[in-house]
């Protein structure tokens, strides 16, 4: 690396970051491209160490430093980790991240289910039977996906109830509430589309009713039901359509919206519980009471 650096004319060399190196770019004093720590007399000791750190950022040895110099990630990570959460933050504030964790569980178990599942009316049921009975831990992973859905639904509703009762949807977090409601609707869509995929009796007839319910809607209802069913009756095309919605369309939307949701949470901060107040100076407090 240092040899390449030498070929670059000094004005074009990478300047040192403030407080790093000797303020001289990567050009170094002894001219051989290697910092020799055995000669601390020539330089002040910490400056030499700094320079060595600068060197390491150009070599694969210091992976974190290398990545950080190119992304500035450490600033972001530090800012995220050390940002303050307001006074009074309690266990109710873990419901949102718990919901996200349940979603991550669903995504992971879903990937494993997709490795064995065949979205066709002839093979869907048999592939689930094979997965449940033959595949190592197959029933366990399918159980996690099935019950994980229940856990996620409970958590997302508890998270919404917390936000509602704490008044956390008010200024300046209105937009985040709207995103959250869309996420709840999408989660319910996941539940509905996932129900058909095992293609047992319960799936089939429940989807039939759900589709008829859609069709009973005004104006767009019948068209939407036709689109979902993708034919005169539930069959091959329906399963493939639900499969694509269940594992591509809606998860993509959910991931994007969770990103937006989290961005706003970090930007605006989480609320304090409504009963916690910043204590006011005594003179003001007396005026409040009187």
């Amino acid at each position, binding site marked *: 690396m240092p040899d390449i650096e030498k070929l670059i004319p000094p004005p074009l060399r990478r300047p040192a970051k403030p407080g790093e190196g000797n303020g001289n770019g990567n050009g170094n004093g002894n001219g051989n491209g290697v910092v020799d720590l055995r000669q601390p007399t020539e330089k002040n000791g910490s400056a030499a160490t700094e320079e060595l750190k600068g060197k390491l950022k150009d070599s694969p040895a210091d992976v974190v430093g290398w990545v950080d110099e190119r992304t500035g990630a450490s600033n972001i990570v530090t800012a995220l980790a050390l*940002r303050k959460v307001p006074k009074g933050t309690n266990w109710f504030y873990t419901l949102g991240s718990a919901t996200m964790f349940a979603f991550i569980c669903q995504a992971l178990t879903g990937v494993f289910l997709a490795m064995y599942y065949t979205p066709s009316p002839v093979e869907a*049921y048999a592939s689930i039977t094979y997965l449940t009975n033959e595949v190592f831990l197959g029933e366990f992973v399918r159980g996690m996906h099935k*019950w994980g859905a229940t856990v996620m639904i409970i958590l997302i509703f508890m998270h919404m109830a917390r936000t509602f009762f704490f008044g956390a*949807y*008010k200024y300046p977090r209105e937009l985040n509430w709207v995103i959250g409601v869309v996420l709840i609707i999408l989660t319910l869509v996941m539940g509905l589309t996932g129900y058909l995929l095992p293609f047992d009796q319960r799936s089939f007839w429940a989807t039939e009713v759900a589709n008829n319910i859609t069709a009973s809607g005004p104006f767009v209802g019948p068209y939407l039901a036709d689109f979902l069913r993708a034919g005169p009756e539930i069959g091959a095309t329906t399963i493939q359509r639900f499969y694509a919605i269940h594992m591509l369309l809606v998860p993509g939307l959910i991931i994007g919206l969770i990103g937006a949701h989290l961005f706003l949470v970090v930007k605006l901060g989480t609320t304090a519980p409504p009963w916690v107040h910043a204590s006011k100076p005594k003179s003001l407090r007396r005026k409040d009471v009187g």
Partner: protein
Amino acid sequence: MNRHEKEEYLREYEQLKKKGKPFFPYAIAKDGVMFVLVALIIVVMSLMLGAEQGPKADPTTTSYVPRPEWYFFFLFELLKVLKPPWLTPVATIGIPTLCMVLLLLLPFYDRNPERRLTRRPIAAISGFFVIIAMAYLTFLGANAGSPTEIEAKVPASLEEGKLVTAQSGCLACHQIGENGNNGPGPELTEIGLRLPRATIARSLYIGPGIMPSYAGLPKKKLDALTEYLASLR
């Protein structure tokens, strides 16, 4: 919220934040405990309750009651509460859509800057009402089984139709005599008086409204079913 109230909130929030603790390690520790708890619950539920596979989907029989996943029970039960057919679209589309719009727009019509629940009586009452209503409807849905037997006596020639009716999940949504659920579908005890035989056959064939179509049943079963229903008077 007017500008003054907004500024007051932001100022107070800034103070609360100054007094707070850093996200790492305090908040993340709670989140971590919660992650472990959620993972444990999912694993234990999977191990205890498993993932049983029902009988294979078969359009020619309805030996299984069409029932949604439990978190849709409240919507399904709504259909029983709003039973008249002209109210069905209200229950299937109207109320859910209204609820979604009300939820989405909540921050735009609730402009009261107060956050303490004791000072938001309308929000508190409607919030608790919605929770109780949803819990009650879910409870009803969880307990609404589907009987597979019809007690009323029939002549021998209609026995087969009675059996098909009982086993085809009709009673999940219809009441026949003492058996079955009163809704979402209309009562069938005297359906033979109200509808001619051909109309009954056609209803079974097309599946009117939200009812599933029974066109997939073998012709012999479908005929027996029609015969039995037309005899109810």
